[in-house]
């Protein structure tokens, strides 16, 4: 009677050993144990103007090599500054004091991480010390804005005059977006508020005083720079002899094109029932199938 029992026991033991071996295999060979394993580490304090999408436990890298992780992200009390504490492994304890901490993005759409470039100082950062030099996360919108020649317009203006325009839909237009005429920035969006009476968006444009010959029947349209770029206000000049003055309203406006609307129109061949269908949650391609 004891013989079959012991064979059960051996079989069961083998099964359990195999199961745990498989678990060990999964845990060590197919996953990053380093992401969980935390050796002895020390804390470095950094301050960033903007951390973008940085998250806690994001990696900290030097020359692309992971040396630690982000321990905590808090807002500095009373300031518009993010206080990011980095936990660096003890073995990397010779980081120069004038090193620069930068928030990078892995690839175009990847997660963000903190990269540290060594400075030339002989002094090293003490545990609990602060890296004074930081570069904030590059916002994709700002980069695209610079790329499309939109950034920094408002800075070099001598003086502006304000013009309002009402749009039924401003899309993703934000304050500070450029105002362009013939593709050249001539001002910026000063404010975007919803009109409580007309139930549309009232956009105030600050236009450089140099451009004071814009006809008052010009049209304002919201365009997008490229496919995924930022939105801006384009002014298409009219033919009126009188020019726009401070406080005038631009009557002719063209709202932002919503990508969803465009795609919807494309899918249903411009059928007017697309919005209704989208609201009902039905696939918007169904009317096209019936036609």
């Amino acid at each position: 009677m004891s013989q079959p029992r012991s064979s059960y026991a051996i079989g069961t033991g083998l099964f359990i050993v195999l199961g745990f071996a498989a678990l060990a295999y999964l845990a060590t060979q197919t996953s990053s144990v380093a992401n969980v394993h935390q050796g002895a580490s020390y804390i470095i304090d950094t301050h960033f103007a903007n951390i973008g999408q940085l998250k806690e436990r994001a990696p900290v890298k030097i020359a692309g090599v992971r040396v630690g992780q982000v321990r905590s992200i808090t807002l500095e009390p009373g300031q518009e500054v993010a206080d990011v504490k980095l936990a660096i492994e003890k073995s990397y304890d010779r980081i120069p004091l004038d090193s620069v901490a930068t928030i990078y993005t892995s690839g175009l759409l990847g997660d963000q991480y903190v990269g540290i470039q060594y400075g030339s100082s002989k002094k090293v950062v003490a545990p609990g010390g602060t890296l004074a030099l930081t570069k904030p996360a590059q916002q994709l919108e700002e980069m695209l804005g610079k790329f499309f020649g939109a950034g920094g317009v408002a800075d070099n203006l001598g003086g502006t005059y304000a013009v309002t325009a009402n749009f039924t839909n401003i899309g993703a237009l934000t304050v500070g977006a450029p105002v362009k005429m013939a593709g050249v920035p001539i001002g910026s969006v000063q404010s975007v508020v919803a009109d409580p009476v007309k139930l549309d968006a009232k956009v105030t444009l600050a236009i450089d005083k140099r451009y004071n010959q814009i006809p008052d029947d010009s049209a304002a349209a919201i365009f997008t720079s490229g496919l995924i770029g930022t939105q801006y206000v384009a002014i298409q000049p009219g033919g009126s002899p009188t020019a726009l003055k401070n406080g005038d309203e631009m009557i002719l406006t063209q709202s932002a094109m919503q990508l969803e609307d465009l795609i919807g129109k494309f899918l249903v061949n411009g059928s007017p029932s697309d919005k209704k269908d989208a609201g009902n949650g039905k696939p918007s391609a169904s009317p096209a199938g019936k036609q």
Partner: protein
Amino acid sequence: MNQRRPQGRNVVTQSLAQIGGCGLFLLTLLAAIPRSFRYLRETIRQLWFVGAMSLTIIMVCGLFVGMVLMLQLYHVLSIFGGTSASGMVVALSVYRELGPVVTALLFAGRAGTSITAEIGLMRATDQIDAMEMMAVDPIAYVATPRFLAGVIAMPLLCCVFCAMAIFGGHLVGVTWLGIDNGTFWSNMTAVVDVHTDIVNGVLFKSLAFGAVVTLIAVYQGFTTPPTSEGVAYATTRTVVASSIAILALDFVLTAFLM
């Protein structure tokens, strides 16, 4: 300790009575765990039966699941030139969903049915009543060892399943389709997180599934009408109820854990 099938007037009350009876039975099982320690041999024998004997089917199925997953992913991802990510997608989908769910479904078919049939026949041939006559607690001797064995065996089986699936994916992806070996592993290790994917996904889910499947199997066995037809129905019900419970619980667990 006489377990009888709960009665109800219509389908709704019948199902409610089944769920309630199952819940009460779980409490009885858990209360009997200390008493079942003296039947450790029986627990080991059940572990051998539901665990070690299920290894073959789990390993073969895991291998093929990993292989077919890789094959499908490769053809879809090659459209976007992203075949190097296929190893990572195989690992994530197996760890988070396919591994625990498919293992639990196979486990319900392989071990759950035989538990139900065995206990049902014990019930039909009055062996359970005989145990009570001999002052042997049938819950502690028959039900709890099988329950414990299922709860222990499922996570281990699931680990074996996942390992085989990764092996199958590697076989198809690297050996046949020519994905770079280093890319395969480095992409996988870059995204698989021990806590989220392996502890929460593989271990926790399969533990819960193991408990649910064996609870349903043991409960169906104990409440079988003592006829051969009753045993047949109870076995079918075990598979149906387990499958529904596994998939529903999977959604709930994913919603909570992710």
